[in-house]
């Protein structure tokens, strides 16, 4: 994707309101509208995410879920409506998006300063299993390693809100399972509010406290997941939830 560098270098006309005082909610968005060339992509979307709540956002391709994430991340300023996000927001993208010309440690501390950030970055790298890779070039990492480094980078910001845009979409199935466990563990330790955008129904059920479904630019389902943190796949309601969500997404569940 080539860019016109002058566009991102100018500040947008609108950015989400950064709320400084501690609130009960990490995200409060009401009546968000966004259209591209007159075509409505998001219509009257309202959502809130509590502090430390893990929310998964499901939707088919083109449902507007990435657009919503970009708005919350402050990357898209051409929307209408009210959006409040906390001061510290971190984003994990589908590609790990490590700067190829910087080694791993400076990638993790990107935009951060001081000894504390440096120390935290080292700790986080160890936590995601990348101790000793501080000086490696991103090109030498496997897909899973790169995504773990990206997770460390996101957490190094000590975010109150962590936005994830299909972060495991490009990984193989085995690596994805490991990443799910790692993410769950990191989430429980650092407790940011999480919005995980995904099209993987099982991933959403395994990880989230609540699942939102976006259909044609509108939130069509808001479903609390009342399952234990561990062993969700074995839970009696797992298949039932899966079927319900697949139906909501317009896919026939043939796994009966």
């Amino acid at each position, binding site marked *: 994707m080539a860019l016109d*560098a*002058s566009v*991102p*270098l100018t500040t947008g006309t609108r950015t989400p309101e950064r709320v400084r005082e501690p609130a009960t909610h990490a995200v409060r968005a009401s009546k968000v509208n966004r259209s591209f060339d007159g075509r409505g992509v998001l219509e009257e979307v309202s959502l809130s995410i509590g502090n430390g709540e893990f929310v998964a956002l499901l939707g088919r391709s083109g449902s507007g879920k990435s657009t919503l994430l970009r708005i919350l991340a402050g990357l898209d300023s051409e929307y209408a409506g009210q959006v409040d996000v906390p001061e510290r927001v971190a984003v994990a993208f589908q590609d790990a998006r490590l700067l*190829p*010309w910087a080694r791993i440690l400076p990638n993790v501390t990107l935009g*951060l300063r001081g000894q504390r950030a440096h120390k935290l970055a080292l700790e986080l790298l160890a936590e995601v299993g990348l101790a000793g890779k501080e000086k490696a070039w991103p090109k030498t990492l496997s897909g899973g390693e790169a995504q773990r480094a990206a997770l460390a980078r996101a957490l190094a910001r000590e975010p109150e809100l962590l936005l994830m845009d299909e972060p495991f979409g490009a990984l193989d199935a085995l690596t994805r399972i490991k990443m799910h466990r790692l993410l769950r563990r990191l989430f429980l330790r650092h407790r940011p509010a999480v919005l995980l955008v995904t099209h993987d129904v099982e991933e959403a059920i395994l990880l989230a406290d609540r699942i939102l479904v976006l259909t044609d630019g509108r939130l069509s389902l808001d479903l609390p997941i009342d399952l234990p943190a561990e062993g969700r796949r074995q839970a009696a309601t797992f298949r039932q939830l899966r079927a319900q969500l697949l139906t909501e997404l317009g896919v026939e569940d043939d796994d009966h």
Partner: protein
Amino acid sequence: MPIDLSSLRDLDRLAAPADEALRVGVDDRLATPHRARRRPRGLGFLVDKALGPLLLLGVWFTASGLGWVDSTTLPSPGQTWSAAHILIANGQLQEHLLISLQRAAVGLVIGVTVGVLLALLSGLSRVGEVLLDSNLQMLRSMPILALVPLAIVWFGIGEEIKVVLVALGVMFPIYLNTHTAIRSVDAKYIDLAATSGLGRIGLIRRVILPGALPGFFTGLRFSVAIAWLVLVVSEQINASSGIGYLMTQARSIGQTDVIVVGLIVYALLGLISDTLVRFFERRALTWRSTLQSR
């Protein structure tokens, strides 16, 4: 008036290498970043590289030795060697070489600096782009040597004109390649910078400049080739020193051996400077070659 087609074709052939050097194109390595072909190492590598030139030297020896070419047309390797020997012994070669090197270096430094500054101005700001880019894109289609008459009027025939011409010739490939590289830094990294709390300065320092560095080096390699090309011409037109002057002087008294010595010196200068740039390029861009950094 009848046109002698054969001489035209000769001209064409002579112009070809110069044209090649002047073409500000795309670095062929960009097209194939991950070369799968294994390059031979060590002795095999040396043989691969040296075999062609050695054969050429053999042909030269044979052709002169058997009298196929007249020594006033092309001197034998022996004659060339002794001419070089004399020129080195009386210090002439070193003296003129030093002057040529100085002109090339000063012109290169000025041209690279100006080229990079212009690329930054037009790559990073809308105003800069409007004011600079179309002008520079227009000027670059002009062969730089066409400026020689005007440059003589402006700068006379002293040192300035040589440095100015080299700097001008160098500036364009640096500007074009660096500007393009800045403009084509992937938008996803710009998004990353925005979400990582990098300010404008941080964005430029951590993302745009390192991202544009490969393009800069592509430009630099073109620039170095052009620096020598422009220098040769400007030293042959109006100079009282430098390798080009040495060759022009030799021509006026029919010393083809000195001319050939000059040619070889130019070739070596080109080769050495290109090797140097490649060396610095590899050092600066280690992140691109996965095997080295493992």
